[in-house]
Each structure stands twice: as structure tokens, then as C-alpha cells.
């Protein structure tokens, strides 16, 4: 299953090794790891909690991965996203794209991340010295996803 939602942490090295071991045609593996920062909009963040829409999240991510597999002739891809309570420095997300050559792997990894940011139903709430607050969506994330749009047909 190329998409996993879980509370537990993941081992990046093991996950990437498993992905590559499955298919010797893989010559390039690009990966991205997102982490909880201890600062947001100038305020210290002591904790973050991630909410999601069970069912829809898995579907949305599977659709994004499917589109990437088709657009870049990927050999395989992987998305692991954590939910629940996370502390600064902890891993939030791992995206990996495996292809024969690097150009496809780099592009697909960035595409999956950009679409995840704007289409997968996750919501972050951060705890600062003044209390909890929901993280606002950023316009630059919309623009990043917009780059990948293809003309219809």
C-alpha cells in the first residue's frame, strides 16, 4: 500500500530501503521529509496536533499518487503521513518517488507534496504561549500546486 496514515513515527531509512528493494529497475529515488518546527509566524510552538478526515484522506492521497505514477512513469511511490499530537523536531510526512532516472523522481516527489498540501484533508493546530490556534492555509501552497496543472485533454 503506497499510502499510510498513522500516529506512530516511521523510520525513513527502512521505508526507503523497502521501496527500492521491491524492484531492481529503480535507479533513482527522491524523497521529502516534513518536520514540525518550533516557530510559526514569529511565535514559539510547543506542540502540534494533526486532524484528518478518515477515508477521504486515504482516497485523496491515493489519487495523487496514481496521477504521479502516470505522469512520470514512476516505478513506485510512497506517502506516509502522521496524525495526532506531534512535538517540534518530529517527522510529519514522508514522500518518496522511485523511477529509472532522477528527473522523473525529483519532479514526481515535488508534485505529490504540492498536491498533498492543497488537496489532502489534514488540518494542523499549533500550541503557542497564548494558546491553541489552527494553522491558516498559505497562498504560496496554492501557487505551488497550480504549476502542475495540465491543459485539459
Amino acid at each position, binding site marked *: 500500500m503506497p499510502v499510510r496514515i498513522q500516529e506512530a513515527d516511521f523510520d525513513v531509512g527502512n521505508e526507503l530501503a523497502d521501496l527500492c528493494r521491491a524492484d531492481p529497475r529503480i535507479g533513482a529515488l527522491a524523497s521529502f521529509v516534513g518536520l514540525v518546527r518550533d516557530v510559526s509566524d514569529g511565535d514559539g510552538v510547543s506542540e502540534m496536533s494533526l486532524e484528518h478526515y478518515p477515508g*477521504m484522506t486515504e482516497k485523496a492521497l491515493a489519487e495523487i499518487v496514481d496521477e504521479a505514477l502516470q505522469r512520470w512513469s514512476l516505478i513506485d511511490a510512497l506517502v506516509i*503521513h502522521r496524525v495526532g499530537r506531534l512535538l517540534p523536531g518530529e517527522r510529519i510526512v514522508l514522500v518518496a518517488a522511485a523511477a529509472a532516472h532522477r528527473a522523473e523522481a525529483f519532479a514526481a516527489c515535488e508534485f505529490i*507534496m504540492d498536491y498533498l498540501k492543497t*488537496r489532502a484533508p*489534514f*488540518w494542523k493546530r499549533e500550541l503557542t504561549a497564548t494558546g491553541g490556534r*489552527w494553522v491558516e*492555509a498559505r497562498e504560496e501552497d496554492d501557487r505551488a500546486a497550480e504549476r502542475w496543472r495540465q491543459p485539459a485533454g
Partner: protein
Amino acid sequence: MLSILYFASVRERLGRSAEELALPAGVTDVASLIRHLGQRGGDWENLARIRNLRCAVNQQMVSLDSPIADGDELAFFPPVTGG
């Protein structure tokens, strides 16, 4: 019946995470459902005014003019912020 879910800041504002609702007469799309829910008054009146309110029907993100039918699963939530 409609199954309606509320997430994140929308859930907090309404004080509710889920409900079952018999499809109200005259409700044919997401926008008319939002108007119907607004008749409850209080925080529900503000649902239509939530900036960038997002909606999913049967777990697909849709625009507010999308049709809905008996048996659908709806969800209301703010723009997503994962990753």
C-alpha cells in the same frame, strides 16, 4: 438521510463533529443545505460566511453549487493544511 461531518475550525465553531439529517425539502445542492443549516441560528448562521469554506460530497472535494442527494456523505471544513 444525509451524513454530515465537520472538521477542524468549522467543527469547533459549530460545536459538532457529525450528524445525520433527513434530506430537507428544497435542498438540492451544497449551497441550499448551508442556507437550511443557517436557519438553526446562532453559530450556524455564520456557516455561510466562513471565508474559504470547503465542502466534500462522498469524500470528493466539490464546489458549493454541487448537487447533493439522499444518502450522500457531506463534510464541511477549512482549507487543508497538512504536509
